[in-house]
């Protein structure tokens, strides 16, 4: 599945730095390297997960891909069906506008991503109206179709967002993202703000839509369970750097990076009742403005050596399809997630 499909999106060596400034004359007081040499690919029709904790840069990556933020270095190559490969970094306004017809975003907080003063009809129709795709009767039909596709009754069309529940609002966000028939959907924590039982419904909806419309997802999340369920391949990020990539199941069963191991070990598990917790990492996620030298994870890594403090490890392919940014990726034997039969509920 990974080799045959062409890459819809390829991120190569992307970096983004924010400068912090303060004071009357805007002195530069610091630099945050939100993205540091990020590379990964998104094959057409697949779901790639972008996983990490706060400050890792995953949301920033999403916005850089969408063009809301400008990358300082690197390339982002989107293979447009008509125009062929297009580098989004440094692309002109026209190119960007054209590419956006094929690439849309689902935001995390449905309360914040829907203008509370607009009616649902206008919200979903907006991309179509702005890009002059449809109007009049055809527009209305299309909006009805989109609403039905996400499981909402068209009766809601002329209501405002506050009339709906959180889960329903998120469906509107999804409908809006699909309005232009994009090929790539960047989903930035699409279910984090929803209730547990609604999360499952929304995930199922996203999966169905993917099959129906042949969508490609870039799924940005922090919940490993969700990522495990939903994605084909995973990119693990930490403080702006890619730490590991690979097929999702493999990454979680046999991680090749101590940070991934720490993440997996930290996740609470059903059935893990009062077992000795393996707290593999100490300390906290450092501030992105003052990252540690060398490998960012070294102060918290149980396997850290001198070299880890001095040299930044390169992102290398350890096995076919598996990359890791660690000096000792080949030699370390790391613990991953294992299935425990006792934790599966007895079927009724």
């Amino acid at each position, binding site marked *: 599945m990974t080799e045959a499909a062409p890459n819809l999106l390829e991120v190569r060596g992307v970096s983004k730095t924010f400068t912090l400034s303060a004071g009357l004359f805007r002195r530069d007081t610091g630099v945050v390297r939100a993205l540091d040499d990020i590379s990964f690919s998104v094959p057409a029709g697949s779901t790639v997960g972008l996983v990490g904790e706060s400050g890792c840069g995953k949301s920033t990556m999403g*916005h850089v891909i*969408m*063009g*809301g933020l400008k990358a300082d270095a690197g390339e982002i190559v989107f293979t447009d069906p008509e125009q062929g490969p297009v580098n989004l970094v440094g692309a002109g306004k026209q190119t960007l*506008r054209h590419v*956006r*017809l094929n690439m*849309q*975003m689902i*935001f*995390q*907080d449905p309360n*914040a*991503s*829907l*203008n*509370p*003063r607009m009616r649902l009809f206008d919200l979903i129709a*907006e*991309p179509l109206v*702005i*890009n002059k795709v449809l109007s009049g009767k055809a527009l209305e039909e299309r909006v009805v179709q989109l609403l039905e596709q996400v*499981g*909402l*009754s068209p*009766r*809601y069309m002329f*209501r*405002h967002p*506050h*009339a*709906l*529940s959180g889960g*329903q609002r998120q469906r509107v*966000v999804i409908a*809006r993202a699909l309005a*232009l028939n994009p090929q790539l959907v960047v989903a930035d924590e699409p279910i984090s703000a929803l209730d547990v039982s609604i999360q499952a419904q929304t995930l199922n909806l996203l999966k169905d839509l993917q099959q129906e419309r042949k969508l490609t997802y870039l799924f940005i999340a922090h919940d490993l369970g969700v990522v495990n369920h939903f994605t084909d391949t995973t990119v693990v990020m930490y403080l702006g750097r890619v730490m590991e990539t690979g097929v999702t199941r493999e990454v979680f069963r046999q991680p090749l990076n101590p940070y991934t191991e720490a993440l997996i070990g930290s996740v609470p598990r059903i059935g893990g009742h009062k077992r000795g917790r393996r707290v593999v990492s100490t300390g906290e996620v450092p501030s992105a403005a003052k990252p540690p030298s060398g490998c960012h994870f070294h102060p918290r890594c149980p396997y850290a050596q001198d070299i880890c403090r001095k040299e930044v490890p390169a992102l290398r392919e350890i096995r076919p399809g598996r990359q890791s940014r660690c000096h000792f990726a080949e030699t370390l034997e790391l613990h991953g997630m294992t299935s425990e039969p006792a934790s599966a509920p007895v079927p009724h």
Partner: protein
Amino acid sequence: MTELAAAGALAPATADADAGTAKVLSVRQLAWRKFRKNRLAVFGLVVLALMYLSAAFAGFLAPYGDRETHAQFARVGPHGLNLVDADGQFHLTPFVYGLERTMDRKTFKQVLTVDTEKRYELRWLVKGAPYTLLGFIKSDVHLFGVEGDGKLFLLGTDSKGRDLFSRILYGAQVSLTVGLVGVALSLFIGISVGLITGYYGGWFDEIVQRIIEMTLAFPQIPLWLALAALVPPTWNSIQIYFAISLVLSILSWGALARQVRAMVLSLKTSDFVRAAKYANASTGRIMFKHLLPGTMSHVLVVATLTIPAMILGETALSFLGLGIKPPMTSWGLLLNEAQSVQVILELPWLLFPAVFVVLTIISFNFVGDGLRDAADPFSR
């Protein structure tokens, strides 16, 4: 704490797509509900409505004309309606007593006497001095008055014998509107500047902010005085009216611009603005369809609270003789007569316009408070 909120707020959500008939209010309806809850705000709104209506129909409501003088009856105190006559008899129709000015032979002073023998009944829809309503309706019918030689001076007369009550009604036309014109100007400048500086930021924003800070640091009244004094005295009433509006709005656009800018700054990074950007929305569309509506509620509140300052400003300027000039009337101009202590002692009724000024300002403040509550109908 979400549970407290969920239990308490009762968000008007429906159970699911097929639940149907739960009543959902639009944003505007929610806002109006919130406003109605504030009793003082509603009171203020009613008072203001009455005032503006009265000003609009001043000609009809005032017993006398704007410049109508009663030379014999200058400096007369309030001479109003009675229900019970000197004999203790109750009359259904209110009436006024006769008024006479005679010269006392001995002291050679003018003496005012109330003649309880003569009674003039209140009449409705009397004919009086001609006037023009709303600019095009000509009439000479007044809502109420007395006929013949009867004089109805509800709030007394001034030094030229003009009925104060009538003049207050006419004065309302200027006092209540000059603030509006000024605020409209401020709104226009303030919103434009706020939108642009908030959205683009950069060095332009910095410069404009410093300018605004300077305008806000300026002492308002002295600046108004200075600017008003610059207005050429040869200009006619109408020109002066607009000049004064301009003067008043020169300092107040700054606060509005800052308010708008602050809202734009916070809304600019909202996800819904980003969503519009990712849908290829133009900057204009983002500004006017997404950012501006979000600021309108706050802008409205600031505007409503700026109007009283303008009314006061005009009143102050006219009071000092630097504002509206005759033949236009304003409350401030009416107060101009009450400048010396002697006048106040002898003719205290000339201070009545001040009561109306205060009432107007309080009402605007109440309404502004109510609007502030209604501006965010989802807050608790």
